[in-house]
């Protein structure tokens, strides 16, 4: 269910499961800092996954490779954005344990269509929902700096999801076997995600689907409504 993880320097303590990390409740003085640190590392994971997609699939259409290269730069910039805010708030890189589960789940698949479906169409699309809700929360809390960071991030992530949506359709129309690969990958990825997060990592986590963002990111209206309904059932 997991490929080997990416390299990390000695500042970082890498854990395998969410329960092993520092998970502070909302309102705890370290909760935001810990979240910024976690997000910083997850953006590095995204960079590394996109980089692997480039190096592992040299025969992919050039247009997709250009999008992947752009995604590498965007994710690197996101990591810098989170780091900048974290250090401004007196955080130190390596202060909290990190997970590299996204990279380890995505890179086990040997199909680019499957990897795009997991990384961009699932993880990042789910991120649109979480980030949009976080923008609202940050503004309510008066944390305009954080809200600004999220707004810049979500604009980029919409592009990442959009190109994946477009290209998965193209890749699947060209080779319908890709649909089966995607379905199998989604099932494996779901099991892996549950293994990492455990019940503790998902309990009480609830926010609505970002309908507008998902439409902008190339999901169809039907897909958006299905997701919205599922997410409201989980609430």
């Amino acid at each position, binding site marked *: 269910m997991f490929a080997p993880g990416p390299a990390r320097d000695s500042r970082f303590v890498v854990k395998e499961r969410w329960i092993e990390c520092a998970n502070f409740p909302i309102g705890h003085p370290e909760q935001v800092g810990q979240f910024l640190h976690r997000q910083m590392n997850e953006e590095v994971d995204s*960079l590394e996954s996109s*980089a692997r997609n480039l190096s592992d699939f040299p025969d992919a259409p050039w247009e997709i490779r*250009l999008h992947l290269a752009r995604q590498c730069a965007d994710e690197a910039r996101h990591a*810098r954005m989170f780091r900048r805010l974290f250090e401004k708030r007196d955080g130190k890189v390596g202060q909290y344990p990190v997970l590299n589960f996204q990279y380890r789940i995505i890179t086990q698949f040997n199909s680019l269509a499957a990897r795009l479906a997991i990384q961009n169409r699932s993880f990042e699309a789910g991120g649109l929902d979480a980030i949009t809700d976080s923008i609202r929360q940050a503004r309510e809390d008066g944390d305009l700096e954080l809200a600004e960071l999220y707004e810049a991030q979500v604009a980029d992530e919409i592009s990442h999801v959009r190109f994946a949506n477009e290209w998965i359709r193209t890749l699947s129309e060209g080779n319908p076997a890709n649909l089966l690969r995607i379905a199998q990958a989604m099932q494996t990825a779901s099991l892996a995600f549950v293994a990492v997060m455990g019940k503790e990592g998902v309990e009480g986590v609830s926010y609505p689907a970002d309908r507008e963002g998902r439409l902008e990111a190339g999901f169809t209206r039907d897909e958006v409504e299905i997701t919205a309904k599922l997410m409201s059932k989980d609430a």
Partner: protein
Amino acid sequence: MGLSVQDRGRTVATFRHIHVEMMETLAQWTPSAPEMEVKLMLGEHIWDVAQNADALGKRTRELRLPLQHSIKPADPYAGLLADIRKEADTARRLGSFYDVLLPGLESRFRAYLDQTDELLDGPTVRILQQIQDVQSRMMKQSRKLRAELPELGKVDGEWLKALTRRESQIASVVA
């Protein structure tokens, strides 16, 4: 007599191949480099090099070759690229890429610009000048990173000199 359209096409397509290889090299190095700061710099540079490859690839079509056409470089240069790609140590990776490969390409671009006709081959001239600016920024960023993290600059001077010699002894990248 200057370069023919065919000569220009072959050279631009070869430059494109080299840039795609460089993009793949940086991409391959990103997850395996332990240092976060290196990963983030490589991530940005992957996009820089990809855009350079894209510009060259659009130009190949204008030079009567297919769009985004790549021609494998001469064997000695292809071998050099392959050996650099295999490097596992971060300091050697950075040294080989930013202190040997990019300056070497800079010389080759200058040689091409000296040889081609600025008017007849205007679009290529412009593309290479833009690539030179991008590469100059990339090299500056790598020097800044190694100044901030001196461990990343600790590479065997003799090894680096030998690699530089090897690169400079390759007369032409065009097969």
